[in-house]
């Protein structure tokens, strides 16, 4: 069965410094992986997705993630944090080969950006 582990429940960074949000996955087949962001009182917004094309995926707002099969990881990074990046981030897995219709969510990482 597929699963996702987000290694940090909270991450604090200073504005202008790099962001690293960690995600490891477990999947029997070739997975599709996503990062979603949730700002307070807002819906879940897709940041980026990996679906077996390029292993380095670029998303919106300067975020990117690298799929590393050998490490079963899909960490989210951004070179320079902005105050508006403060939100909750979810790593999500969905099995492409098995045709699973559902998303499996990680527990989320709350990013705090300090001025």
């Amino acid at each position, binding site marked *: 069965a597929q699963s996702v582990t987000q290694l940090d429940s909270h991450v604090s960074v200073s504005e202008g410094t790099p962001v690293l949000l960690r995600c490891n996955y477990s999947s029997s087949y070739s997975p599709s992986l996503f990062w*979603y962001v949730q700002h307070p*009182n*807002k*819906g*879940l917004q897709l940041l980026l997705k990996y679906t077996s094309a390029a292993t380095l995926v670029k998303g919106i707002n300067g975020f990117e993630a690298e799929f590393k099969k050998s490490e079963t990881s899909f960490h989210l990074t951004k070179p320079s944090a902005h105050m508006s990046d403060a939100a909750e981030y979810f790593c999500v897995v969905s099995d*492409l080969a098995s*045709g699973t*219709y*559902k*998303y499996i969510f990680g527990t989320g990482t709350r990013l705090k950006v300090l001025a």
Partner: protein
Amino acid sequence: EPEVTQTPSHQVTQMGQEVILRCVPISNHLYFYWYRQILGQKVEFLVSFYNNEISEKSEIFDDQFSVERPDGSNFTLKIRSTKLEDSAMYFCASSLLGAGGSEQYFGPGTRLTVT
């Protein structure tokens, strides 16, 4: 940009009462989903719906739950007799395709409080 909408944003109900949560998916999407997030826990899949029938459901989605697409635009989740443990944020999502790699678009959620 098209978006998924949900009403109401917050619903308070008494234990044992029926509630209907409403969603308007993106108009050309064909697959619809409900997820929930109990406070402090991860987002969990409830059900997926395609071609007017349930395509997959989780263990959570028992006989107390039902979904319906009563017309061409709405997608509803009904809880027949609410329990305290049904208190959660409920998210509706839709996607154009149903395969595991298809991105899902989420609504802002309905916060259900059962007293």
